[in-house]
């Protein structure tokens, strides 16, 4: 076993274990901290795959922004921290059944796709050029410009929606 494979196994195990802890712990803040651990594990796997851009963005966006936001939300929500709260509601049984069914449907569908069994080729672009290739791929009309811009419009819509919801309605009534 090479060093790389050993590291992959270690980080994959860490990620899976932390993901299990996220959904099974009673204390919500501990769940949030384990979520950070799971995201770090995913970032490490990106780093092993030499996708350093994704590794850095994974840490920057998911840990630096989203996980911190989740922690703030958890801390500022009233009474959510008590251990007496259960994390399941009455319909957990039917949800489990549905999830298992959907999981099998997805797996069977994906396995019929011809790309499923092909071995991926390593991208032989050294150093800085990998990021350049990624960047041009995102904004090139021949590449992924359309999905990229669509995602930006979606995020803008979400931003406007957030502002609208948080807008002070009393001020409207006054005028």
């Amino acid at each position, binding site marked *: 076993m090479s060093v*790389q494979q050993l590291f992959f196994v270690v980080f994959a195990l860490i990620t899976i274990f932390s993901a299990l802890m996220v959904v099974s712990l009673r204390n919500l803040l501990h769940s949030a901290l384990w979520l950070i651990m799971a995201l770090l594990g995913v970032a490490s796997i990106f780093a092993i795959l030499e996708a350093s851009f994704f590794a850095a963005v994974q840490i*920057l966006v998911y840990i630096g922004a989203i996980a911190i936001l989740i922690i703030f939300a958890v801390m500022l929500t009233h009474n959510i921290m008590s251990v007496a709260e259960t994390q399941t509601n009455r319909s957990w049984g039917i949800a489990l059944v549905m999830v298992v069914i959907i999981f099998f449907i997805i797996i069977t569908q994906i396995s019929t796709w011809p790309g499923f069994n092909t071995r991926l080729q390593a991208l032989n672009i050294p150093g800085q050029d990998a*990021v350049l290739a990624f960047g041009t791929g995102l904004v090139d009309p021949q590449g992924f410009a359309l999905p990229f811009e669509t995602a930006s419009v979606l995020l803008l819509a979400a931003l406007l929606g957030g502002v609208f919801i948080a807008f002070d309605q009393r001020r409207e009534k006054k005028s």
Partner: protein
Amino acid sequence: MNLIDFLRDPIIAISDWITNLFSNWGMATDWATFLLYLIGAAVLGISALLMTLFFIWAERKIIGRLQDRVGPNQIGPWGIFQSVADMVKIFIKEHIIPTGVDPIPYHLAPIVLVASVLMVWAIVPFSNTVYGSNLNVAVIFLLAVGGLGEVGVMMAGWGSNNKYALISAFRASAQMISYEVPMAIILLIPVLLSSSMSMNDIVNAQNIPYILVLPFGALIFFIASIAENGRAPFDLAEAESELVAGFNIEYSGLKFGMFYVADFLRAFTSALIFSTLFLGGWKGPGAEAIPVLGAFYLIAKSLIIWFLGVWIRGSFPRYRIDQMMNINWKFLTPISLVLFMLVILFSKLVEPVGQNMQYLVILIINLGLFFLSFRILNNQNKKKVVAEVGSRTRPVAKPDNLFSKDVSRG
């Protein structure tokens, strides 16, 4: 290999020697590389932590001088071994764990915080041959690691089970998140000018240090990095008068020492980053032929920037939390956005003319924006009505002279 060659680049010579040693032992190449990186990381980390001892002493001494005190002066010449004594004391101190702490976050927080500072050292090029990793996304990595520091602060604040620690952690992470915004925007400008996100390429592209091209950008980055480090005048997280001691209030012994070390090390680390990005890093006369000189130049430049930070720390009073937020969201963020957009626009417009012309235009934009924003701030300051507390005729410390009695003082 003779001595001169060794002295020219000792780090690479030693690492070559170790690689040879490992391959002579019959080790596989990837394991040998792995071990070599491990040794390098350990040496770099330990030397960074040991350097902190010196920085703590120097900072206490300099601030003592600035505030008309003596500073540490008992142990060794000029008290230079004071922090060694402090370190030994902190090692043998009792480690008190308060009841009711959340154990895992509480014990992990100091480690995460120190690690988040040390990880930055992995991407700093110390000379043209010695660097931890020539990461092609070093600039994003820098910001991402800052995010890990916030996690450490939150863990400390939450885990301590103390309301002052929690409030302080909220303040500290709000401050760090806010000041990351102008910092990230300004970071994009060196990336644009050198068309690379790797620290080595950014240093190599600086034929002229970027501070001469981007003086205003460098100033914004400097202010934001002081705030990001949570040092005076932005040390709201440890405002003793309001919050007792900050998010590390429940820590004692070695764990408090870790927070202390992280604090002082971060000051020098951000100076290191500043000099890499804006002062040309290891560049200097003869640095390419003799790599050791490069490391020397980098440390010297960083020490100057670090001294500026200490100087500011020793002379400015602390901002209130609303002032801190206003400085960021109403001044630094908009002005850095404007600067960034103008720089993109005009540097693209004059790109065909040549690089020197491009630099000149960017410099003019910088200076223009600086004076404009300065004027606007001054005008706003004049409009502000400041309520006077106390009276104009206040008692003076020195007794009045009998013969030349100053009537105006009353």
